[in-house]
């Protein structure tokens, strides 16, 4: 007998005992469905998270901010060395090629007036590469440029929310803005950035980008800082590739430590956070998968039980088959393939059911569903494995039946 013949025998047996087969597969169907639903849910949420990162500058962003050590008493000389400065940005650019974008940043609150309205807003001084780094697009006008930097031009770019607050529905480009007593001209408004993890969310994690009031860092230093200070609040960085993540971060920290004399800074690191998030997510996945695996095991036990229960009914059949020349091996393979065919069919039904589950859950969570080939593979393979292991014992028992005893069985 070749494999195709065994398979055909298996299908015939299933067709002949449809009711029994359905009962047998229930556990496998539910087990596979919950495993598939788990995979579907995590795949859908991962896809959403990846989209968030993609829209807001990718997974390779890193930043350095001032974090003065609290208890230490510093000498005046030491104090002069500490804190992020504009030269740190230049040093990073010059020293390594692990970062393809380096953007210095200053954040201060200032009184901002436009026409009759006046309010204290946070002003952010950037270098022009911030637009590329955060994947920003212009709603109108232009972003700050290298030329603005060189000339320390009195220009400002507004986020869409700030533009609305200051100018209402009118286009602010070309209009004047007064920041802390200095006159600036609006040259552009960035396009509104919107992202919701769930369709019903009210929290837009990109909103801070819409609330930026951006001026060239050179302009800010010239107009709002004492000359020669060149102190900055933050350094925004982008890794050239994920492969250089660890070494670049280590080199960065070492460079800043040696330049500042002490560790007076903190680092935020998107890739590190994602990696941590993934390992935390794994715990949830493992919990869900464990539930699925347990129901698969229960399903497997049901299969063994039903195969053994139908055993007496099939004893005569085994006896006849052996009398006609079936070897123990052939009987074994026949029973085993039957079990595997049953569970794989159950796995296919479970896959469909699991996709329906995923769709339902994602609908409740108001998120889009993402399906992966992994789900199909896991469904079919786990079902086949369950069929194999839980079919083994009945198959061995059937194969070892003494034909004389089996034939006499009434």
């Amino acid at each position, binding site marked *: 007998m070749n494999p195709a013949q065994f398979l055909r025998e298996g299908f015939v047996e299933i067709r002949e005992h449809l009711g029994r087969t359905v009962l047998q597969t229930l556990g496998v169907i539910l087990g596979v469905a919950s495993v598939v639903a788990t995979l579907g849910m995590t795949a859908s949420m991962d896809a959403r998270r990846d989209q968030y990162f993609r829209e807001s500058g990718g997974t390779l962003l890193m930043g350095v901010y001032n974090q003065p050590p609290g208890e230490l008493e510093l000498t005046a000389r030491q104090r002069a060395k500490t804190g992020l400065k504009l030269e740190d940005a230049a040093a990073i650019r010059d020293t390594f090629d692990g970062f393809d974008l380096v953007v210095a940043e200053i954040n201060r609150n200032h009184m901002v007036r436009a026409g009759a309205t006046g309010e204290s807003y946070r002003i952010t001084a950037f270098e022009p590469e911030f637009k590329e780094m955060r994947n920003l697009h212009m709603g109108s006008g232009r972003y700050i440029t290298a030329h603005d930097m060189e000339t320390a031009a009195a220009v400002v770019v507004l986020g869409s929310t700030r533009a609305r607050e200051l100018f209402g529905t009118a286009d602010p480009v070309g209009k004047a803005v007064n920041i802390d007593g200095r006159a600036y001209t609006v040259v552009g408004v960035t396009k509104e950035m919107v992202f919701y993890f769930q369709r019903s969310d009210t929290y837009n994690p990109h909103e801070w980008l819409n609330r930026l009031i951006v001026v060239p860092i050179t302009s800010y230093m010239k107009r709002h800082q004492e000359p020669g200070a060149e102190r900055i609040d933050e350094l925004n960085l982008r890794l050239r590739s994920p492969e250089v993540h660890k070494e670049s971060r280590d080199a960065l920290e070492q460079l800043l430590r040696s330049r500042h004399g002490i560790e007076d800074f903190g680092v935020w690191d998107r890739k590190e956070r994602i990696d941590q998030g993934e390992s935390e997510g794994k715990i949830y996945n493992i919990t869900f998968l464990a539930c699925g695996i347990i129901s698969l095991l229960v399903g497997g036990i049901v299969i063994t039980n039903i195969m053994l229960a139908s055993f007496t009914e099939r004893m005569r059949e085994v006896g*006849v*088959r*052996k*009398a*006609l020349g079936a070897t*123990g091996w052939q009987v074994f393979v026949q029973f085993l393939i039957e079990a595997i065919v049953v569970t794989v069919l159950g796995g296919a039904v479970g896959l469909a059911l699991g996709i329906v589950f995923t769709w339902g859950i994602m609908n409740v969570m108001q998120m889009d569903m993402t399906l992966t080939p992994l789900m199909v593979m896991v469904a079919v393979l786990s079902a086949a494995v369950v069929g194999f292991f839980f079919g083994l014992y009945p198959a061995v028992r059937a194969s070892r039946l003494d*034909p*004389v005893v089996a034939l006499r069985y009434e």
Partner: protein
Amino acid sequence: MKTLMQLEGITKVYGEGDLSVEALRGVNLEVGVGDYLAVMGPSGSGKSTLMHILGLLDSPTAGSYLLDGEEVASFSRRKLAHLRNQKIGFIFQNFNLLPKASLLRNVELPLLYGGMGRKERRQLAYEALAKVGLADRARHRPNELSGGERQRGAIARALVGRPAVIMADEPTGNLDQQTGIEILELFDELRAGGQTLIIVTHDPSIAARARETIRIVDGLILPNGQKAAA
């Protein structure tokens, strides 16, 4: 005449120690190619055990059994299964057709285990069914057939692989008299075609059709001519 089966000093003991039962107590028997042998004896005489041993379903406790000149005691289970498939065709009192399979599939089974391809299998199964007059019943399930048809189907299954010997255990036991006679006439035809047949029965009228009859009582074959106690 060529010898097909030769048994010498065959014993079969079931159980152990005080509880053991001797089903066969030293049986000597020779069956030639083309023989038509009836094995008679009362219930519990050991005739079923003898048939199981002859049919390689069971192995003797002691003694020698040569099938086609080969000592079968030394064979593995796998080899025995193969020999059952190739050399022996079984017919049972209760037919033992697989209930959920069509008659055709039932008849194909021995060929399936012999490793024959689907097309050839089908062809031979149809021929065997035609031989027993059931060609038009091939697609029916056993429960759609009469008792006589079922037994003729079982005969088709027994002879489809051209076995060296066909062994029947009370083949007419579950049939009415007229149908039983039809089955026996079918055996006569097979016998005329040179088929070796062994029939186990307790019915003297069936035994009368056989060319040779042996009687078995208490695990021993009675000498020729001696009447069985039953």
